[in-house]
């Protein structure tokens, strides 16, 4: 065993012990059971897609078609691997370099571990890719072993993912630049969506027919690697695959090295200096407003929560993403989705608002104590009731969500995307109902399994796939009353039916909220020691 190899083993071993100690130290509560259940559902869905690929690919009868289908699948998988973490602002596992840099570990070893950790953002891709490889290997058109070339695709994505993560982490840490980067990503993501939305389908088909003959020969990574893995060997495909791999390795390592030498404290300090200069800014004045209108301690608590959120990098990122990214990704579905017609865009405001609530979830609902963990300890010793603290956090969440819906409305108006004025109160009412249900569940989750979070970090540390697993299982339940309200309007063809069902949803939501609030406060009172310990705990070498 080389010394560097032993260092890697030690890092992995320590992380394994951290996980083991956390699991054996924790209780198998309902929250944890639900979490594992939702993960099982999500990965079962992914495994189904893998199975589908494994049985469908051998049924294709021409090699050209097999290469084209594989190329399309690889393109989709690469987009998921590289873009989904950005869309969900969830980076997955990463080395805790702040703690490891003090040791004499060679940079290339750290890079290797970091690249391997990128598997955590591509687990779903690997499962589907295994199905694709199995399908290609079983196809009578290929030599079977050619599927091993898919490993090039995996290696390229791992290294590209390191580079993208490091680059974005640095860019997203800078105020001003962060917003520009998000806008850039929005525009990039918007391009194909806007083409699909704005260009008539016949023109698109014509364009495809014209260029279909040469497009598969473009030396794009997914095309080249699909050709190799399906046994359609050519010098161009081999050269392009190696070139893309080398380019990804260079990009990933260069960005990683820049990240190692980057001093985040310096950037933050400059930002703080800027924000301190002069009189209180717009943000401070805005955040202080509810504090003036509400009686203390509620007023002081809400003002503090708003200020803390407003100064947190992660919150600002997801808030900004809500009314930019949200609009872009829902735009094509609204205008081109199944059953779309001239009135399809009218629900866009509602959809984007509900998506924004999902993005804001971890900050506002699911882990409300984790974001400002130092303050939690103070709340336990201050002469203020925990009920008031939780109520203030909940009120802040609602105010923020309302502000988000207002920003989405404004953005849609500026973009001249038509929607009837009656949809505005509807969007606010539905977002509020969703918030009520999220708060009911979130208050309990926050005291049952609190986790300290770094508000300065732009990325969520869990992977995008895990977030989606939870979303798939939980959000439909919370969205059910809104869906039922729409169903009632469709059945009775009256807005009154919609609002009546929504009202009954509010009643159920209010009951759930009050019961959950009482339980959450009771748990927090009883288990304050555990909560403070959980919030002050730091992670392992990988976080």
């Amino acid at each position, binding site marked *: 065993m080389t010394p560097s190899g032993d260092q890697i083993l030690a890092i992995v071993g320590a992380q394994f*012990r951290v996980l083991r*100690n956390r699991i054996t130290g924790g209780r198998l509560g309902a929250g944890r059971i639900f979490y594992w259940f939702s993960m099982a559902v999500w990965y079962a869905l992914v495994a189904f897609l893998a199975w589908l690929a494994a049985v469908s690919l051998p049924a294709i009868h021409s090699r050209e078609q097999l290469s084209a289908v594989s190329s399309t699948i690889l393109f989709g998988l690469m987009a998921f691997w590289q873009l989904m973490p950005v869309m969900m602002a969830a980076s997955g596992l990463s080395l805790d370099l*702040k703690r490891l840099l*003090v*040791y004499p570990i060679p940079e290339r070893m750290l890079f290797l571990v970091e690249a391997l950790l990128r598997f955590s953002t591509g687990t779903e891709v690997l499962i589907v890719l295994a199905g694709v490889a199995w399908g290609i290997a079983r196809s009578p058109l290929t030599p079977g072993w050619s599927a091993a070339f898919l490993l090039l695709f995996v290696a390229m994505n791992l290294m590209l993912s390191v580079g993208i993560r490091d680059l974005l982490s640095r860019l997203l840490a800078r105020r001003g630049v962060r917003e520009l980067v998000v806008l850039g990503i929005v525009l990039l993501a918007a391009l194909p969506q806007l083409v699909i939305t704005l260009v008539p389908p016949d023109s698109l088909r014509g364009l495809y027919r014209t260029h279909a003959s040469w497009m598969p020969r473009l030396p794009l990574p997914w095309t080249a690697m699909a050709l190799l893995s399906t046994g359609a060997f050519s010098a161009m495909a081999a050269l392009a695959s190696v070139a893309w791999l080398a380019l990804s390795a260079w990009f990933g390592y260069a960005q990683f090295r820049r990240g190692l*030498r980057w001093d985040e404290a310096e950037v933050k300090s400059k930002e703080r200096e800027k924000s301190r200069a002069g009189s209180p800014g717009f943000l401070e004045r805005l955040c202080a407003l509810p504090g003036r209108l509400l009686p203390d301690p509620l007023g002081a608590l809400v003002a503090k929560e708003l200020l803390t959120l407003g100064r947190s990098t992660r919150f600002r990122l997801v808030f900004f993403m809500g009314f930019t990214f949200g609009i872009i990704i829902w735009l094509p579905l609204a205008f081109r989705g199944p059953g779309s017609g001239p009135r399809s865009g009218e629900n866009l405001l509602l959809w984007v608002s509900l998506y924004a609530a999902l993005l804001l979830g971890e900050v506002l609902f699911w882990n409300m104590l984790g974001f400002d963990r130092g303050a939690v300890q103070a709340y336990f010793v201050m002469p203020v009731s925990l009920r008031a603290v939780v109520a203030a956090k909940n009120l802040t969440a609602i105010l923020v969500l309302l502000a988000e819906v207002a920003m989405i409305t404004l953005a849609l108006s500026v973009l001249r995307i038509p929607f009837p004025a009656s949809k505005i109160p509807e969007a606010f009412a539905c977002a509020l109902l969703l918030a009520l249900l999220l708060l009911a569940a979130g208050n309990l989750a926050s005291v049952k399994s609190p986790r300290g979070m770094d508000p300065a970090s732009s990325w969520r540390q869990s992977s995008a796939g895990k977030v989606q697993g939870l979303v798939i299982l939980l959000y439909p339940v919370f969205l059910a009353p809104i869906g039922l309200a729409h169903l009632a309007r469709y059945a009775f063809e009256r807005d009154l039916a919609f609002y009546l069902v929504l009202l009954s949803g509010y009643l159920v939501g209010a009951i759930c909220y009050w019961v959950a609030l009482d339980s959450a406060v009771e748990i927090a009172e009883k288990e304050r020691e555990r909560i403070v310990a959980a919030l002050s705990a730091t992670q392992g070498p990988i976080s």
Partner: protein
Amino acid sequence: MAPDPSPAIEIRGLRKVYGEKAAVDGLTLTVERGCFFGFLGPNGAGKTTTIRMLMGLAPPTAGEIRILGRKMPEEALEVKARIGLVPDESLLFDHLTGLEYVEFVGRMYRLGRELARKRAAELIELFELDTAGRKLIAEYSKGMRKRVAMAAALIHRPELFLLDEPFEGVDAVGARLMKDILLEQVRQGATIFLTSHVLEVVERLCDRVAIIHEGRLVVEGSLDELRSGQETLEDLFVRAVGGPARSTEALDWLR
């Protein structure tokens, strides 16, 4: 082989700027080998920033650092292998036991699994943390955390110790043990670079001290050279950085 004549730490014109403020401003300092060096200053004077730059955790805006004759950050890997660190901010992993953590650090310093495990067990026993058994570091008191950090800093027998407030929260018995170990390390030729706000401890342990204020070096020398008459280190410190600018007399309600 002749002993290396280069100083343990050599800093020339070191500067670290955050925004428009210089946290460290033109610091020039030499710490000879085998010296117990006290690096003092009021809160926010730039002590931790200096240590972070010495460890290669923060790149300097300007200036030059040489540690044990090697240039930082160019030769960071060789330097890090010969340094023991007790930082002010925690580098500990809370969900490991003390023994697991010290063994982990030993392996980071390339001791190999067996040797790291053996030394970790001995150090945990020495620092009387073995009674904590399977306790996770998350459950340790502040003093116990400092003790486990000190144990980890010793595991690879470093030539230079960078200690940021190592006695903070440590009880009298634990502090005595740590001081004895550090003095023994100095006797054997190690160099210690210590920051502490407990001036009595610095007075008792250190051969030389430096005081920085607002990022600049204001005093440097041996304690005997610096003190005049019966002056204590606290008197010297207050003289060097200035006394409190305000008093409670201005606040009627507090009197």
